[in-house]
């Protein structure tokens, strides 16, 4: 990976407020999340720091609390879920007690996200280009024609082959991979510093999944975007991340540099995730010690 400071200087429109690259854009400290209705703590203390151009991965099965952690950082926890401990700092601001107005100004321009099922985040009766352009008009306060121009540029930046054509299409005319590209375009439209990809490639074919992961890596290198990649698949996270957190039932059972976690896993659960790939996956053939 190239140095972050250089990349950050390059595209001016992607950096609303220059911050020293070493300073974290997202800082999660001992965050605890509780279900107030059930009176139960679901996430028992998650911590990580994310600096520009870096990627943190969160691995865990459904119900492990990985999505709740992301939602807390986005200020979109479901009803009666609350952060009951620790702190989250976004671009230097403590988000506890943020008002709706403060969230509205930060979301999209500082932190943004893409999720698993892209079609459900787009209106099926509005052309997809217009939906991306709306984000640009609202966030950047530009006129319609300029928003359209910028949208087409963004659609090109996410490697959609014919951006002008895609601009005028509806969701049903696009494949899952293309829709996810459109949503990534919308997510980065206002030049956020952090992008959360929560199971963003889970529903896609493997070749398309690789295209989207490569695209995220490109964006990170070109713009200094910081990524949080959430997946149930350790290998997906390993491909892209500098640091990995393994979550199980709301507990961080393992955390460290990706290489360390993959090659010297300490927790039994991490070893299970690795064994799954080594015994029942491609790694069965690719791993040097395994001979089929």
């Amino acid at each position: 990976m190239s140095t972050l400071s250089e990349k950050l200087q390059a595209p001016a429109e992607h950096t609303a407020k220059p911050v020293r690259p070493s300073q974290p854009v997202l800082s999660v400290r001992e965050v605890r999340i509780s279900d107030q209705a059930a009176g139960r703590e679901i996430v028992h203390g998650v911590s990580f720091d994310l600096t520009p151009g870096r990627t943190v991965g969160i691995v865990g099965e459904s119900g492990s609390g990985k999505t709740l952690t992301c939602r807390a950082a986005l200020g979109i926890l479901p009803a009666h879920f609350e952060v009951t401990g620790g702190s989250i700092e976004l671009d230097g601001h403590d988000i506890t007690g943020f008002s709706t107005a403060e969230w509205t100004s930060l979301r999209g321009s500082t932190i943004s996200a893409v999720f698993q099922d892209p079609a459900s985040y787009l209106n099926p009766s509005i052309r997809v280009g217009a939906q991306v352009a709306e984000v640009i008009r609202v966030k950047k306060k530009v006129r319609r024609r300029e928003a359209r121009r910028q949208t087409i540029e963004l659609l090109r930046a996410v490697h959609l082959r014919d951006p002008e054509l895609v601009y005028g299409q509806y969701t049903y005319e696009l494949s899952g991979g293309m829709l996810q590209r459109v949503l990534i375009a919308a997510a980065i439209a206002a030049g956020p510093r952090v992008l959360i990809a929560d199971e963003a490639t889970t529903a896609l074919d493997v070749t398309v999944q690789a295209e989207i992961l490569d695209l995220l890596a490109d964006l990170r290198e070109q713009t200094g975007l910081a990524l949080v990649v959430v997946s149930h698949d350790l290998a997906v996270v390993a491909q892209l991340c500098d640091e990995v957190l393994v979550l199980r039932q709301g507990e961080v059972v393992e955390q460290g540099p990706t290489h360390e976690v993959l090659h010297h896993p300490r927790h039994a659960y991490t070893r299970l995730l690795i064994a799954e790939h080594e015994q029942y996956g491609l790694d069965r053939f690719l791993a040097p010690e395994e001979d089929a």
Partner: protein
Amino acid sequence: MSTDPNPGRTAPVLAVEGLEVHYGPRRRRRRALHDVSLSIAPGETVGVIGETGSGKSTLARTVLGLVRASAGSIVIDGEEVGAYGPRQWRALRRRGVVQYVFQDPLRSLDPDLTVEDSLAEPLLVQGVPRTEAAARVRAFLTRVHLTEDLLDRLPGELSGGQRQRVAVARALVTEPRLVILDEPVSALDSANRVQVLQILKELRTDGVALVFISHDLGSVAGVADRIAVLYQGEAVEVGAAADVINTPRHPYTRLLVRSAPTLHSAPADRAEREALRALLHA
């Protein structure tokens, strides 16, 4: 490498030769499968890997007699079934020679039948006496690592992983020669996925032949002896699993291998993927 090197000295359980399948009315006829040939020996597991629109489910459905081929032959256990009508298919299925497991067990298991009734039904249809059927049901439940206390449950009262294992047991209970599995582990989480793959591996000793169809190269690699790669309706590569993964020949297979998430992915893979995408889309 589009021909299938016949591996067995024994007669194949399934031999597909020059299979063609088309969909749609005459004027807008679309080709779903083109010149697909594949043979499977007793006890062998063949993985069929393909992505959306590759024709992999069409292949499963054609071999099961649910879709009619427009050309080519299908031989199951020595019987040419390609031209069979619905009545002959029904007779063949009743004998329990060929069975199947699909992705969603909630759809393939009768929601109103208990596990015991679901598993016993195919045996009773064959005229197996009740006491013998009950004994066999219990034996096969053990084979899929389930316990007898689940026998009086309904499918809705089982976890997703347990349900899929019941579906596998139901496919096995008639002791078929051939089982077609279409995305059997795609809806399962990793612990259940590993368990079902483990069960499928253990079946090998019985001499039952498995066709494991999936979009996920990882799962296929985990159990298959040989792998067939379907791309745009054609079997572009067929070979031993280790060869297909270590030395893929067709550009699409190479892209698949380089795209599948592994613990050993290297930054160099990204450049190779770019080159292969350009080659395939040219």
